[in-house]
């Protein structure tokens, strides 16, 4: 790894595309597959994850001096669990329909690998400013990934986007897209596409260097 750590701005840009948590680092797959049946729940989940990720990053980087090596995972999970419970209660209070639709996947943000890995790699070693930048970058990347998958699945699966009808009435809705197998297939193909684009861009960069 580069000996000097990337600066806050670099981490922010990294989070969105170059090191996108879902497409590049293959983290946080559980919620990505589960809630992307439609764009609305996907965006709510991305917003909840963003809130938890940023506040956990801030909290961990504030107390990073006191962390003991063998108990640090416990501290991370405690912090993240607290913020997730707050988010879950907030959702249940003010967006009750959405909370019912997301169901068990809101508490599953606790074990979302993106958050714990960001705490481990970045915020337990960096200042608060860098941690916030990294948190925001990563959650934007996560939201982007979730949005892309949800758009594909919703348009193909139920012919709507954000609930508004997009496809012509005659479009046969692919029920499979909303079902679990559709999630796997969409994500697999999107990963392949992302890899292919990355490869082509790398080749073009190599050629004109």
């Amino acid at each position, binding site marked *: 790894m580069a000996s000097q750590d990337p600066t806050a701005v670099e981490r922010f840009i990294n989070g969105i595309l170059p090191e996108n948590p879902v497409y590049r680092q293959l983290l946080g797959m559980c919620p990505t597959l589960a809630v992307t*049946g439609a764009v609305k729940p996907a965006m709510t989940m991305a917003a909840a994850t963003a809130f938890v990720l940023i506040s956990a990053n801030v909290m961990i980087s504030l*107390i990073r001096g*006191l*962390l*003991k090596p063998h*108990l640090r995972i*416990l*501290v991370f999970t*405690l*912090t993240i*669990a*607290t913020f997730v*419970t*707050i988010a879950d*209660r*907030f959702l*249940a*209070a*003010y967006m*009750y329909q959405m909370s*019912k639709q997301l169901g068990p996947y809101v508490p599953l943000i606790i074990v979302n690998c993106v958050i714990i890995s960001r705490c481990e790699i970045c915020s337990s070693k960096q200042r608060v400013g860098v941690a916030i930048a990294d948190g925001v970058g990563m959650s934007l990347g996560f939201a982007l990934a979730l949005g892309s998958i949800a758009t594909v699945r919703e348009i193909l*699966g*139920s012919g709507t986007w954000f609930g508004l009808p997009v496809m012509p009435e005659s479009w046969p*809705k692919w*029920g499979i897209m*909303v*079902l679990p197998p559709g999630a796997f297939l969409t994500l697999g193909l999107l990963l392949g596409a992302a890899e292919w684009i990355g490869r082509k861009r790398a080749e073009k960069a190599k050629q004109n260097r």
Partner: protein
Amino acid sequence: MDEQPTRKGYIGQAWLVILLSLVYGGALAGVETALRETIAENKRRETYDRIPVLVPGADGDKTREVNQADEVIVADADGNWQRVYLAVAADGAPAGWVLPAGGQGFADRIDVLIGLDAQASTITGLYVLDQKETPGLGNFITSEALFTNQFAGKSADDPLTVVTTDPISGSHQIKAITGATISSESVCRIVNRTLATFKQPIRRRALQGGKATAQAPPGPGKDTQ
């Protein structure tokens, strides 16, 4: 690696974890009590909003007021009880009943609200509160046009049966959703079973007189729905 901590050392090492759990425990409880009211309100509102739709002629706020004043609990002979909502019109005259019901569907549990008229003799409407049936097939049981409107007008006495062809009008047949016969049958089974158990107690209550009499609830008096 680390030195061998003594007994007090174990706790000393983990003082951060203990401090954090104290702080977080307190914070969470604070958030919970702050938001609990709104969450409970959401749950209750979800039911009360449906009442005017289920029972024609009922007024939402009046019913809510009456039902929050005293809970109507009906119980059958062998002790299972169920909270029921008396739907009242704007002037307080009883307009019908709303009976929550639930059971095992195709994939998971299905919760419904059954609307009955004042004498609990005919079903006035059905609303599916909660279901996890297969999207695209089973979850059409929630759609008004396809399924739930068929329940309105059916009599509460004879059990409903599911048919795949067009039902004979006026009979107690319900047309199943294509490709989701199991879900449709489960809904009808839930409705039949709940009506069979609580039909008589509701009718007894209806005869006892318009005003809902508070009956000492056998279980802990709490809003179950």
